[in-house]
């Protein structure tokens, strides 16, 4: 098994060039607008964090190898080669200072999808061995253990038993023919067990069949974060195999950001065939239940609250309206952030940033953008639908000595669930 080399990295970049990439590089006029859309730039004013700068090595590869003039220049020895040293320098820009949040893509005047470009750039970084240590560790654990945080099945089973005891509802493992297969992120399993409890209660009340696969329960895809399609494919395949084995109709991506991108949007393209099942985010499923009258709530939160839009779910995922529909079921005083929905700001920790120790400090600086947003708003509670965002925001609020609870949306809905009187079990037991 050969190790990472520059040549492998360059080869990986070569594979990534397609029509959109060529169009994007041909169109960039160096206007600098993407910088103001990126929280890593706005909170540090470091011009190297300008989004289009993060893909400069990829641009040079495209120019030198995929344009006639570029090839001629290279043949004449007039072009600057891509080196290991340069890629090492770019590690900071492509990983520490980028969460693949997609805001730059929304504002580029010539229409460049810079996020798409950075994602492809990471393929070259991974193949050439220029990735942050934290992500290498996470990916290794994910592949070898099954979870980037090292969470094994017994740990999950222990959580499940704990929840069962609280709710009196069984958590179904490996049920063939169930309608839904739930995935969970290690973050949720470790830090937010209320999520599993909430899902359990809601599905029970809705009368929908679901299951967790003991062979593939992990939603987090470190391969996507580190930018290696090969590793991402390995991880997605486990989920696909399990879902096909259990013959489920829909795989549910949990309250996690990039997991949705990984399984819903990249998944089929990674394995090279469409899925024989649907993939939906938990909020999509809950909104469907709401529409079908299967999700009944009572009572309202009277706290003034706002919603943080997880980037991979909303802007890059297309699940925009559902959180709002669901929130409005239980909130009386819901206000949108000034920049909300598909233009909301990243929490600063997505795309692998939270797994990257080198980005610790930068991550907190980036959080200042979220802080500004909250300061403009004056709310009591922040609701979101991604465990990673939750951790980051909680940490950030604490660091800035702001006292504000952060709540997961599924969890909040479950608290207002109308229980089935027949079972005689309610929240208060």
């Amino acid at each position: 098994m050969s190790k990472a080399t520059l040549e492998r990295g360059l080869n990986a970049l070569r594979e990534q060039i397609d029509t959109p990439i060529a169009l994007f590089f041909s169109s960039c006029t160096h206007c600098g607008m993407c910088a103001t859309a990126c929280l890593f730039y706005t909170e540090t004013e470091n011009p190297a964090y300008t989004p289009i700068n993060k893909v400069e090595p990829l641009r040079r590869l495209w120019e030198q190898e995929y344009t006639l003039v570029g090839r001629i220049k290279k043949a004449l020895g007039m072009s600057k080669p891509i080196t290991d040293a340069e890629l090492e320098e770019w590690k900071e820009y492509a990983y520490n200072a980028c969460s693949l949040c997609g805001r730059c893509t929304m504002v580029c005047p010539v229409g460049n999808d810079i996020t798409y470009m950075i994602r492809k750039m990471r393929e070259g970084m991974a193949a050439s061995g220029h990735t942050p240590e934290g992500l290498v560790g996470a990916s290794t654990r994910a592949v070898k253990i099954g979870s980037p945080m090292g969470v094994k099945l017994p740990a999950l089973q222990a959580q499940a038993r704990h929840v069962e005891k609280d709710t009196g509802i069984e958590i179904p493992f490996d049920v063939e023919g169930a309608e839904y297969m739930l995935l969970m992120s290690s973050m949720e399993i470790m830090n937010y067990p209320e999520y599993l409890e909430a899902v359990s209660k809601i599905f029970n009340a809705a009368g929908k069949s679901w299951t967790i696969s003991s062979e593939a329960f992990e939603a987090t895809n470190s391969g996507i974060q580190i930018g290696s399609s090969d590793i991402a494919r390995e991880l997605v395949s486990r989920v696909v195999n399990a879902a096909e084995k259990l013959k489920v109709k829909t795989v549910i991506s949990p309250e996690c950001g990039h997991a949705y991108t990984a399984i819903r949007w990249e998944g089929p393209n990674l394995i090279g065939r469409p899925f024989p099942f649907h993939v939906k985010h938990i909020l999509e499923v809950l909104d469907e239940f709401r529409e079908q009258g299967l999700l009944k709530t009572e009572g309202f939160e009277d706290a003034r609250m706002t919603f943080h839009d997880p980037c991979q779910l909303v802007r890059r995922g297309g699940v925009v309206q559902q959180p709002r529909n669901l929130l409005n079921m239980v909130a009386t005083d819901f206000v949108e952030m000034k920049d909300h929905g598909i233009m909301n700001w990243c929490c600063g920790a997505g795309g692998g940033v939270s797994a990257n120790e080198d980005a610790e400090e930068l991550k907190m600086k980036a959080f200042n953008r979220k802080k500004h947003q909250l300061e403009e708003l004056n709310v009591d509670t922040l609701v979101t639908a991604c465990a990673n965002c939750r951790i980051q925001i909680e940490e950030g609020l604490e660091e800035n000595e702001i006292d504000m609870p952060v709540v997961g949306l599924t969890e909040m809905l479950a608290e207002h669930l109308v229980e089935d009187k027949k079972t005689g079990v309610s929240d208060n037991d």
Partner: protein
Amino acid sequence: MADDRTLAEMLRAQGITRRGFLKFCATTASMMALSPAMVPKIAAALENARRPSVIWLSFQECTGCTESLTRSHSPTIEKLIFDVISLDHHHTLMAASGEAVDEALNEAMEENFGKYILIVDGSIPVGNPAYSTVSGISNLDMLKHAAEGAAAIVSVGTCAAYGGLPYASPNPTGAASVEDIIKDKPIINVPGCPPIPVVITGVLAQFLTFGKIPELDSLGRPMAFYGQNIHDRCYRRPFYERGQFAETFDDEGAKKGWCLFKLGCKGPITYNACATTKWNEGTSWPVESGHGCLGCSQPNFWDMGGFYRALSMPTVDLANKAGIGLAAGAAIGVAAGALNRGKKAKAVREHETVTVDDLEKGA
């Protein structure tokens, strides 16, 4: 035919009053944008001018310049000036006299060696001098010989000044201008096809008055008459500004006297006195008659892309060139695109699956 009388004597003999003569000087002064104070000086100079010997040689020309100047359409003043300037030799006007003409020419040149003014109209075939000869002598030889004793040379008409019509592509006779051939004498270019009559006489009057070559522009033309752009003095300029153009010669715009830019008027790049001095004693000029300026006082005006092709238009068929670019581009493009696809396919073939063990950099 040297005549030793001064101009003043001659004029009185011809019945021209002093008043009439001074009026001419005043006109001349104003045409040259000189102050009224100069009028007495002009009068004195002309009065006392010992009529310089003038030799007029006609080469490859259509005689239009001679017609314009010597067949006087305005009764007497210019003609008198001509009589005054001792026109010792003029090919066309003296054609009837045969061999005696050649003798007279040589005599005049010898007698006034170094002092005579040589006027030339028509271009000189250099490609094959046999294309134009007089009495068996080529224009080229005649010009060189005559230039030797000339005080100054005046190239009348665009043919003499820049080659004119014979010079136009493909220039079968190898026509050249006077200044192409003679390099060691002062040359005044008085171009036009033909030049305006009063312009030539004005130039000569200026020369007589000041005894030296007038201020010339970069193309050797007297600034007094060629220093202004037709476009700047054109009475139809406001229509150009407003974007009102005649599209054809008989449309609404043409009838309303709108700008002729789109019909090929070369006014903006032409320097002459037509827009102000006009022709036929101020009767009219091409634009006023409804036809665009041909640019006839400019070099190469025959090859300027066409009289009816607007100045801003390319002289080549750009659609055709674009077609060439497209065809060649498509051919090269397909090749380049194929190279791209090949490169990418190769990269995919040479892809080595990345595993977590590969993430650490190799030695």
